[in-house]
């Protein structure tokens, strides 16, 4: 009796377990077989992660392989607002560390999202302090940040990048395709805390880091140029200033600086005035420095000789309705003296003797109608009219640098013609592109120069321009150790259809040493005050820069 009941109970328990097991097996079959694809997709979405690996942007070096721009890893702070409990308190505690407003952080934390940036690319110290707070929902990821060890040095040449390391200005923009590199990819498994599991990496395409740029800029010469330009800019309360230093034999730009400038590491807080690369973006009427073109052309065409005499009309010459003035009244002078003393009347008379077709031909040959084609964005060619648009009075204005425009770089190339035996070199600012291992992948050879002047004219012009420095208007450019040649210029700025009486551009273009020039330099100071003559404001900059640069170069040789 008892055994019968026991067997029935055993059977009932057995059936119960079998049924339960069957239900489980069926459920398992349903999940594993019938709904296989559905659940696999959900699981894959949770476990598998596909991440882009950012490439490292290429480094920019100067000609001596000094680093001018480099990428450093930097933390970016982000938040998962849904996971942050006390938003107000969190905002208060991290805003101070990151140097941003508490309201801004609170606004970000109040968004109904699972990811918001708080601040990208913060300093290692700030990142460590935020991490030390261990606030739930606040974390950091690593990104690559563009950094400039020399801060303001060559800021207008190098340019800036945006938060995603895309070039915005300067060489960073012009050579972005070389510098940027290509991103890589990784497809991997992640755990519940979103940590990647290296052993479960399905696919890995490494990033291609950006190529490096080797510039023709010399960091030391650039530094000298910026120092001297800044001194003049401050001393003469100028609105702006530019300098270009070039090796006339190769066209290599050794320094290009502008004032005001800005710190490349703090580009956000720069002024609007400091953004422009004035040396190539701004054109102006060059004034008397343009007389090197007139004088060279007249000598080359044998329209005048250095010993030819002209009557400079005691400083006032009426031609129809137009009256030409000289800064200092002069009587009869030789053509050499006319250039040395910068007589407008004498220069115009020599140009008229040569004729306007030849004047136009040499303005073109010296490159004032074209861009120099330097590898920098935003270069302008100026606004020079073709000869058929010249007016009746153009020949009384153009030979002395009015009614024509030029950039500081065009002026540097023009003086380089005289420094480089009559050849017009093309400026070069990038020498090489190298791969991350340092192998050269692209060379930028020196461009074949065009012949503009004969050697005879060049030697005559060197003598004349040496006279400008030794006994003419450019005495403040004279150096103790080296002989130099150059030309001063003081141009009135045009405003509302007339020439201003109190706004000037003082400039100086020159080369050194006279016997065998290795430097061609153009300096322009925009609206200097209270002194405004090129010989007073720009010539000293030329002297100091060239003096230090030649001494530095002699140490290197």
């Amino acid at each position, binding site marked *: 009796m008892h055994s019968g009941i026991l067997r029935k109970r055993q059977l009932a328990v057995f059936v119960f377990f079998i049924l339960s097991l069957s239900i489980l097996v069926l459920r398992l079959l349903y999940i594993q077989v019938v709904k296989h694809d559905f659940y696999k997709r959900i699981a894959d979405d949770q476990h598998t992660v596909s991440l882009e690996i950012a490439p490292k942007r290429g480094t920019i070096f100067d000609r001596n392989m000094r680093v001018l721009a480099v990428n*450093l*890893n930097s933390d970016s702070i982000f938040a998962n607002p849904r996971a942050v409990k006390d938003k107000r308190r969190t905002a208060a505690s991290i805003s101070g560390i990151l140097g941003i407003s508490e309201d801004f952080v609170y606004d970000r934390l109040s968004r109904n999202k699972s990811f918001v940036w708080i601040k990208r690319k913060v300093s290692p110290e700030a990142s460590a302090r935020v991490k030390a707070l261990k606030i739930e929902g606040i974390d950091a990821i690593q990104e690559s940040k563009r950094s400039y060890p*020399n*801060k303001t*040095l060559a800021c207008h040449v190098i340019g800036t990048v945006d938060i995603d390391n895309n070039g915005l200005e300067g060489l960073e923009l012009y050579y972005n395709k070389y510098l940027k590199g290509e991103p890589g990819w990784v497809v991997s498994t992640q*755990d519940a805390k979103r940590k990647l*599991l290296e052993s479960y990496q399905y696919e890995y395409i490494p990033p291609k880091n950006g190529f490096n740029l080797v510039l023709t800029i010399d960091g030391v010469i650039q530094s000298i140029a910026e120092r001297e330009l800044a001194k003049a800019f401050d001393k003469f309360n100028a609105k702006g200033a530019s300098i270009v230093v070039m090796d006339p034999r190769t066209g290599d730009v050794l320094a290009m600086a502008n004032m005001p400038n800005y710190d490349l590491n703090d580009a956000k807080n720069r002024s609007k005035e400091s953004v422009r690369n004035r040396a190539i973006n701004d054109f102006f009427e060059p004034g008397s420095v343009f007389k090197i073109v007139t004088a060279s052309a007249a000598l080359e065409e044998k329209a005048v000789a250095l010993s030819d005499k002209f009557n400079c009309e005691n400083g006032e010459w009426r031609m129809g309705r137009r009256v030409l003035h000289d800064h200092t009244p002069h009587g009869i002078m030789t053509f050499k003296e006319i250039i040395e003393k910068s007589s407008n009347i004498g220069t115009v008379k020599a140009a008229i003797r040569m004729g306007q077709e030849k004047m136009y031909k040499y303005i073109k040959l010296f490159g004032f109608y074209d861009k120099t084609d330097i590898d920098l964005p935003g270069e302008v060619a100026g606004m020079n009219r073709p000869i058929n648009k010249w007016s009746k009075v153009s020949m009384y204005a153009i030979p002395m640098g009015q009614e024509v425009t030029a950039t500081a770089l065009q002026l540097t190339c023009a003086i380089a013609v005289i420094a480089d035996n009559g050849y017009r070199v093309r400026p070069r600012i990038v020498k090489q592109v190298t791969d991350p291992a340092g192998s050269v992948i692209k060379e930028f050879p020196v461009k074949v120069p065009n012949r503009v002047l004969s050697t005879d004219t060049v030697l005559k012009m060197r003598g004349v321009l040496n006279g400008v420095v030794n006994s003419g208007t450019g005495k403040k450019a004279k150096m103790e150790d080296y002989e130099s040649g150059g030309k001063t210029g003081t141009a009135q700025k045009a405003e509302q259809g007339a020439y201003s009486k109190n706004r000037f551009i003082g400039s100086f273009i020159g080369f050194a040493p006279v016997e065998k020039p290795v430097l061609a330099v153009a300096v322009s100071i925009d609206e200097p005050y209270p002194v405004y003559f090129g010989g007073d404001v720009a010539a000293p900059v030329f002297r100091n820069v060239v003096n230090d640069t030649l001494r*530095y170069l*002699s140490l290197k040789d």
Partner: protein
Amino acid sequence: MRLIRSFLPIVVFTVASLMYVHQQVELVKLSYHIETKEKKLNAVLDLREQLSYNIKNLEAPSRLERVLLAKNIDITFPRKGNVVRMARPYVPAKRGITDIRSAGIEKKFNIFGFLDFITPKAEAHQAGD
């Protein structure tokens, strides 16, 4: 015997399953280990980059000039004649001789040279080496 025979596949299957699970656990552990080491390596590399960047920052010509001027030290480039070039470039003396040919000692070719490891050779050491 029948019992053992019927349990054997289950045991083998269980052991194989456990080994598989163990392997997967080890893989995950290894991943975490690699990640930790990678983080450390990257942190050290970042620090090195940061430090070399700081050095470049300190070496910037404009900064050096500013610092020197603040200490009233005005440094200028030497003038012509201040620098006297020596006839031959000066080569600082090296401790020890690394290139025997530069020291005037020609090493003779020894056909049994490969047996040198059997007998130790006397080597001269400079003080401090």
